[in-house]
C-alpha cells in the first residue's frame, strides 16, 4: 500500500496547474465573467495538452492514463474555476469524433435534467427536447433544464467522480483564498488570522479539504460506486461549505462582485446539482451499510 501521489502524478498535477495559471489566470477568469462564452482556442489547447484524451489509449490518440490521473487534472480545473462542459467532453473522448482533441465541445444531461452550455455545445449526450433556459446563478455556467427529466436516472459514476474532483479543487481554492486573506487583512492592529475565531474557520476549511481529498482519490483508485457516493458527499460539503466560510473570512468584501469567492460558491452549487440527488447518494450508502452489516 502506498496511498500517496507518485512522482509522475505529482508532475502531472504540477504541469496542469502551471498550464492553467498561464492560460486561465485571474484576469482571464474575470474577463470571462464580463464576456461570457466558451473560449474555443483554450478548448483546443486543453485538447492538445491531453485534457480530454487523457484516458484514451495512446494507439487511439490519447495519453493512456487512468482515472486517478483524470481526477488530479479535474481537481486543478476546479481550482482554476475553468468553465465549460469539461467532464462531459472528457467522457465523450473516443466516442464522439473531435472530443479528444478539443475540436468538438460535448455537453450532457446531468442530475435533475440540468444541461450546461447547451447553446455552445456541438454535441449533446442525452435527450434535451423541450429544454428551457434558466437565468443561471453562476455567471460562468449557462444552464438549461429538461422538463420532466426522470429524477431517478442519475448521472453515471465517472461523471459524478470527476465532478467531485472539480469540487475538491474549488474547495482547495477557497481554503487558499481564506488563508491568504486572513494573513494579510489587518484589524485591531493585527492580521485577522491571529484571532482564533478566524483561525478556526480556516482550520475547518483545511480539514474538509483533506477528508474530501482522500475520499476522492480512494474512489479514483477503486472506482467503487459506494466510494464514489462517499466521495461526492465529502467533496460537495468541502466546496459549498468552504466557499461559505471563505466568504465569511472575507467579511464585507466577500459579499462583493469584485472578489472571486462568489464564483466559487456558485460553481459549487451548480456542480452539487450536476452530480445528481444527494439524497440518493445517502440512500445508496445506507443500503450498502446494511449489506455490510449482514
Amino acid at each position, binding site marked *: *500500500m*502506498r*496511498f*500517496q*501521489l*507518485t512522482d509522475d*502524478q505529482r508532475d502531472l498535477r504540477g504541469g496542469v496547474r502551471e498550464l492553467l495559471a498561464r492560460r486561465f489566470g485571474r484576469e482571464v477568469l474575470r474577463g470571462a465573467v464580463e464576456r461570457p462564452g466558451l473560449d474555443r482556442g483554450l478548448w483546443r489547447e486543453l485538447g492538445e495538452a491531453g485534457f480530454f484524451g487523457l484516458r484514451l489509449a495512446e494507439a487511439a490518440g490519447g495519453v493512456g492514463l487512468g482515472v*486517478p490521473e483524470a481526477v488530479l487534472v479535474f481537481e486543478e480545473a476546479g481550482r482554476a474555476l475553468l468553465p465549460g462542459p469539461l467532464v462531459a467532453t472528457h467522457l465523450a473522448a473516443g466516442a464522439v469524433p473531435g472530443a479528444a482533441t478539443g475540436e468538438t465541445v460535448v455537453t450532457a444531461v446531468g442530475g435533475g435534467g440540468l444541461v450546461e452550455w447547451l447553446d455552445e455545445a456541438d454535441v449533446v449526450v442525452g435527450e434535451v427536447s423541450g429544454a428551457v433556459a434558466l437565468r443561471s446563478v453562476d455567471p460562468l455556467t449557462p444552464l438549461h433544464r429538461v422538463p420532466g427529466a426522470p429524477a431517478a436516472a442519475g448521472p453515471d459514476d465517472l461523471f459524478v467522480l470527476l465532478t467531485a474532483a472539480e469540487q475538491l479543487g474549488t474547495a482547495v481554492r477557497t481554503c487558499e483564498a481564506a*488563508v491568504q486573506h*486572513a*494573513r494579510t487583512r489587518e484589524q485591531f492592529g*493585527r*492580521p485577522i*488570522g*491571529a*484571532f*482564533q475565531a478566524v*483561525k*478556526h474557520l*480556516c*482550520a*475547518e476549511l*483545511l*480539514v474538509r479539504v*483533506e*477528508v*474530501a481529498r*482522500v*475520499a476522492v*482519490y*480512494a474512489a*479514483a*483508485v*477503486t472506482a467503487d460506486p*459506494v*466510494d464514489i*457516493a*462517499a466521495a461526492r*458527499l*465529502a467533496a460537495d460539503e468541502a466546496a459549498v461549505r468552504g466557499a461559505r466560510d471563505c466568504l465569511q473570512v472575507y467579511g464585507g468584501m466577500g459579499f462583493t462582485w469584485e472578489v472571486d469567492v462568489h464564483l466559487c460558491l456558485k460553481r459549487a452549487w451548480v456542480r452539487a446539482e450536476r452530480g445528481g440527488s444527494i*439524497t440518493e*447518494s*445517502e*440512500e*445508496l*450508502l*445506507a*443500503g*450498502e*451499510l*446494511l449489506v*455490510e*452489516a*449482514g
Partner: protein
Amino acid sequence: MDLSYTPEQEEFRARLREWLVKALPALPPKPSPDDWPGRRAYDLGWQRTLYDAGYADVHWDASPTMRLIFLEETETAGAPYVGANFVGLLHAGPTIAAEGTAGQRDRWLPSILRGEEVWCQGFSEPDAGSDLASLRTRARRDGDEYVVTGSKIWTSHAEVADWCELLVRTDPAAPKHRGISWLAMPMDAPGVTVRPLRTLAGSTEFAEVFLDEVRVPVANRVGEENDGWRVTMVTLSFERGTAFVGEVVACRRVLGEIAREARANGRWDDSGVRRRLGRLYAEFRALWRLTQWNVSEGEAPSGGGPGAPGVPGVPGVGGSVFKLRYSRARQELFDSAAEVLGVGALDLEQPWVVDRLSSLSYTIAAGTSEIQRNIVAERILGLPKG
C-alpha cells in the same frame, strides 16, 4: 496511489489472522471494568501472549503499514485492546527508546514488551491542561535525587501502575518550555497518593496523583535536565498516525450494528435516520482512507524506529486533521445510536448508552478540538499565533 498491499504484507496479515483464531479462545474471561487488579493482569497477560508469539514490538519496530494491518486485524478479530499497556507501549516506551541511555533502555523496555510492568502518565495538572508547558509540579535537586512535590490529573491506570512518566519543573526561572524535565517515577515511592476520579460515565477511568516530597533518583531522568519538553514532544508525535486504527474499525462495526437495530425496531423506515446513517458510513469510510493516507505518508524510507525525531517515520500534524474529524464523528455515531434507540437511550443497560457518554471526552482528551484547530491553522496553514 496504490491501495493494495504487498505480498509480504498480505502474508503478515494471513499469519496474524491464523494465529488470532487460535490465541483468542485461550484468553481468560474479561475482568469487570471496576476490577483494576484484574484488568492489569488481563492486559499484561495479553501483552505477554503477543510477546511469546513475536508480536510484542509491533508498535515500535514494524513499519507503519504493518502496524496498521496489526491493529486492523486484532480489532476485527475482537482481540483485547492495549489497555494498561498503553502508556508503556505508546508513550513512555518510545520516549525511552529515542532519548534514553543504553542502561535506561535495558532497565525499562524489556519489561514493557514482556508485559511485566505498567506505566502511567503524569503530564496534565489541575492548572496545566491545554497550556501543558505551564505545569508547576516542582522537582528540587538534592544530591543524587530529585524531591518532587505537586499534583497530576487525568492519569489513567494510576492505581495499578509501576511507573509514571512524569513531567516536572526543574528550573522555575527559565521560560516555561525550557525548565521542564522528564522523570521515570516509581509509583510505590513514599509520598505518592492516588485518588480515583469518577467520570460522567460513572466509571473511574483515571485518577489524580498527589506528590508530596517524593524522592526520585536523578538516574531516572530521561534526556538532559530542563530538556523535558522536547523529549515529550517526541512522544506526542509518535502517538499520532495509527493511534485510532482500531477505533475506526470498531466504529464501522458499531455503525453496522446500529443499522441492524434500526432495521429491527422500525426506525429504518424514517428516511432521515437512513440518510444520517448513510452519511456516517461515508464519514467512517473517509476516515479509514485518511488513516491509510497518513500511514503511507509516515512510511520512512529506512524504518526510522520508535520515535526517531525528524524523520518521515514520525506522523506529524496530519494527526490533528484526523483527530478533529474523528472525535466529532465518534460523537455523532453514538448520537445516532441514541436516535435509533429512542427512549432506550436513557437506559444505561442498553448498548451504546455508556459509549455515548464516554464519547464526550474525545473532543477534549489529548488536545481539545480548539487546540487542534490552532495547531492546524498555525503549523499547517501558517497563520500567525494569537
